[in-house]
Every structure is written in structure tokens, then in C-alpha cells.
């Protein structure tokens, strides 16, 4: 293990190495019950990699003071704490010196602190240079994949795995969505929402068409061809589609505004919007085809009785 790490330090493709610790603890405020938390120990030196976007440099610098922590503002209610107040983690007193945004977890609560404080809070964490993860910046001269290949081949022991940042993020996202309980519930909820959305869209269209069957039959009786009726139905479907798109787009915006307000991390990508739009389009087309099929069976002669 130590060998592997020193190999990492000495590899010519690696510009710097920093430790990253993930431990756990028991959060308490005086007189209330405990909350089990994840302790995230990061390198607090200027220019360090860990949580570089979430923990601004002034807070990073402030975390150098022992027994100081920062928490996500979305968790401050759950932890019953404000910036400047103190609490205990696993029996040790800590002071919250600031709130951060964007680190709210799917299930647990993250407490961010310096490596030294993390080790002091969770005695099971490796001290003296050990770590849960090491973060490295690749030297610009070489391609990341080349470095990774060399590390895996020569330097690193089989008990250590290396990833590119993006790959680890993808693995982690995938794990959270597909293998953690909350993630599976989330995926299920999304599928159900998608299904209900599709159902609403198609039912809106079908009932719009069904409600107009006598009118379509009247047009047929007047001599309007089935082809012209089909054009009308397709037009109607297009309106349902456009309306549905505008509606879902606005609802997404409203929901994401709420997420912003309650600092729930979310990810609304153009590809997601496009994907949902394509799904909506397919549903509208499908419902349209069914509606036309049903209209084909309507007989203008039923108006004569």
C-alpha cells in the first residue's frame, strides 16, 4: 500500500497528489438526538483539488483551524445548526464556520473538514499519509489514459484502483441510481412519472378526438374525405404536443427554481429536455395514429337514425 502510494508520488505523469478521507461520525447538539454523518476530509491548501468548486478558497483557508467544519446549507435544518454555532461529532466539539452549496447528499449528511480534523473526529481513518482516496492532477505533457495505463500496469498494487475523474463520477452516479435503495426508488418514481405523463398526453389527445367524433362524422357526411379528416387530427395532435411541451417545460423550470431555493442538487441538461421532448413527440404520434385508426371506424351513416 505505502509502496503503491510512493509510486504514485514518483510517477512522472502525476503533477500532485492529495489525500481525501471519507469517515463517519455521530453528530449531536446539546440535548438532542444523534444524526449519523459522513465526514469528508479534504486537503485545505490553496489550489487543492478536492471539492474545489464547492468550498471556496476563503472557507478552505479557514478550515485550517482545528475542529472547524462546514456543512451544506440544505442540511442546516436537519443538523439544527447555523454558521458560527458549535456541535459535537463523536464526542468532540466542532465549530461550524460556514455553509456551502451543492453538496447535499441523496441520503446522508456530509460534514466537510480538513484532513487533520477528520482524523481527529474518526479514529478509524488512516493517519500519517494514508487515505480513502488520492486525488491527482495529471501532468499536461501526457494523455490521461497513458498515465492510467502505466499506473495500473507497473506501479499500483491490485488493491488500488485508478480512475479518471469523469469515470469515477459516472461510476458513482450509476451506483447511486441503480444500486442504492434511494436511487432505485428515484428511478422508479421517474419511470412512473414518465408513464403517467405519457398516459395524460395520449388520453388528452384521444379524448379530444373522441369528443369530436360526431363533428368528424358530420364532416364525412358532408363529403370531406378521410384524408382531410386525418390532417385535422394530426393538427390537433400537434397542438396537444406543443401545449404539453410548454406545460412540462414550465413545470420543470418551476421545480428547478424550487430545487435552487431549497438547495437540492439537480441536473437539468439539454439532453434530458430533448429526450423528454422526443418521448412526448413519440407519445403524441402514437396517440395520433390510434385516434386516426378509431376515426376510420366511425361511420357517417350513424348520423342518420
Amino acid at each position, binding site marked *: 500500500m505505502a509502496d503503491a502510494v510512493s509510486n504514485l508520488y514518483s510517477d512522472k505523469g502525476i503533477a500532485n497528489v492529495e489525500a481525501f478521507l471519507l469517515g463517519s461520525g455521530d453528530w449531536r447538539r446539546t440535548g438532542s438526538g444523534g444524526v449519523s454523518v459522513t465526514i469528508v476530509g479534504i486537503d485545505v491548501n490553496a489550489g487543492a483539488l478536492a471539492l474545489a468548486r464547492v468550498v471556496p478558497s476563503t472557507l478552505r483557508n479557514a478550515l485550517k483551524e482545528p475542529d472547524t467544519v462546514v456543512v451544506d446549507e440544505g442540511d442546516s435544518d436537519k443538523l439544527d445548526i447555523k454558521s458560527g454555532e458549535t456541535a459535537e461529532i463523536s464526542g468532540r466539539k466542532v465549530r461550524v464556520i460556514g455553509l456551502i452549496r451543492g453538496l447535499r447528499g441523496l441520503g446522508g449528511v456530509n460534514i466537510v473538514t480538513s484532513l487533520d480534523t477528520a482524523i481527529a473526529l474518526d479514529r478509524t481513518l488512516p493517519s500519517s499519509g494514508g487515505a480513502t482516496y488520492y486525488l491527482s492532477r495529471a501532468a499536461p505533457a501526457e494523455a490521461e489514459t497513458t498515465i492510467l495505463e502505466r499506473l495500473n500496469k507497473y506501479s499500483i498494487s491490485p488493491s488500488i484502483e485508478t480512475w479518471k475523474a469523469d469515470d469515477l463520477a459516472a461510476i458513482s452516479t450509476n451506483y447511486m441510481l441503480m444500486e442504492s435503495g434511494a436511487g432505485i426508488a428515484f428511478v422508479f418514481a421517474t419511470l412512473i412519472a414518465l408513464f403517467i405523463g405519457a398516459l395524460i398526453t395520449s388520453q388528452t389527445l384521444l379524448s379530444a378526438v373522441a369528443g369530436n367524433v360526431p363533428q368528424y*362524422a358530420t364532416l364525412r357526411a358532408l*363529403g370531406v374525405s378521410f384524408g382531410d379528416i386525418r390532417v385535422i387530427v394530426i393538427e390537433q395532435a400537434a397542438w396537444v404536443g406543443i401545449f404539453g411541451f410548454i406545460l412540462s417545460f414550465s413545470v420543470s423550470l418551476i421545480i428547478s427554481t424550487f430545487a435552487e431555493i431549497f438547495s437540492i442538487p439537480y441536473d437539468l441538461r439539454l439532453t434530458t429536455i430533448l429526450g423528454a421532448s422526443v418521448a412526448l413527440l413519440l407519445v403524441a404520434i402514437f396517440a395520433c395514429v390510434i385516434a386516426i385508426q378509431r376515426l376510420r371506424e366511425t361511420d357517417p351513416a350513424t*348520423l*342518420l337514425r
Partner: protein
Amino acid sequence: MTLAICAQDISKNYNIQNVHTRALDTISLEISAGEFTLLTGPSGCGKSTLLAVLSGMTKPDRGTVQSGDFVLTAASDQERDAFRLHKCGFIFQGFNLFPGLTAVEQVQIPLDYLKIPEERARQRAERALDSVGLSHRKHLRPAEMSGGEKQRVAIARALVKKPAILFADEPTSALDRENGERVVAILRAIAHRIGSAVLCVSHDLRLFSQADRILEMEDGKLRRDLRRPRT
């Protein structure tokens, strides 16, 4: 007298869940232009079915239907659609107006599909409404009209294209006496002034005195054919 439509030995059977109905049983008849023909008979004797077959909405099982050189029973669906669009007008018991449209717009619809320019279509629609005594109601929607007014809009919609044949299925049964008589007088005028063949299904005895010809059906067959000399 020119023949508007001519049917030869038409039969139509319905077979639904082993219930066999002989709706039309070898019927032959001719409908003449300029005549107000009344079709009557007990409920279920096949009057509406006959209208559907003569107008090309329903294909008979046997027999031929012909209008001039055009043989409906040999024509494709599209050809029969075009026949209805160009030659036929319809008046239904339930009016069947379009809820979202004003009276003029309703009447304009057939002309739009006949590709008549907007401006002329509008003038013709207004004239048609005028001829049924509704010029002061032309901007109302169906929800804002009485039953008699709605039926007169429907008549205007049927006559606006000066159809060769006008089919009406119980046009007065949803109306009171006064409105019913008014509608009948209009139908009769259409036959005599425009020269359309008007074929009207009715149980209403009051209509009989207005008709030029009375056809009586029973059990899918034509029982009687009475023609009154035109005065």
C-alpha cells in the same frame, strides 16, 4: 322530369351477434329533381338505411345506385366522398352543427371544402342564411340559438351549395309545430326554386300535405309510391 338518383334492386342486411336484420329488401326507386319527396313508414323499417345507401355513405349488399352517369355502388370511397361533397346536402334530426362556429362559418364549411374563394363563400353563406330567415342571427353560435334556428342553419348549410339532392332524416322531429312547418316550407321551396331533389324522412302527418310524392316503406320494402300532381 330529370332523375336525380336511381336505385335498382338494392338490399342491405345487418348481422350482429347472430341477429339478422333485413334493413333493405330489393328496393328499386327513382328520385326526381325539383320534387319534394317524403319517405315514411314504421320505426325500424329501413328509412335511414335507405338514405345512407342512396347518398353513398353505406354500400348495399346487392343492387346498384346511380346518379346520372355516376354509379355509386361501383365507385371508390374517395369518389363517393366527392359525390357527396359536390352533389348532396344533408339535414339531420340532431342538427349536427359545429359547436365552435358561428352560423355563417357553419354554412361556409362546405364551400371551403369546395375551394370556393373566401369572399364569395361568405356572400353565398350570408345569402343562404337570409333565405332561411336568419340574417339577423348569423354571428351566433349553436349554444346561443333555439332548436328551430339551429335546424334552419343546418338547412342553410345543406342548400348553400345548391345540391342536386338534399337528404333530410326526420328534420322536424326535434322541433315544435310552428318551427316544423317553417322547416317543411323551406324544404319544399328548395325543391321547387333551386330544383333539388329533396328526399325527406318523416313520421309527421302534417308534412304529407306539402309533399309532391310520398314513399311508404315497411320491413325493408317499398309498399306504396304516391305522386301528387303538381299544382
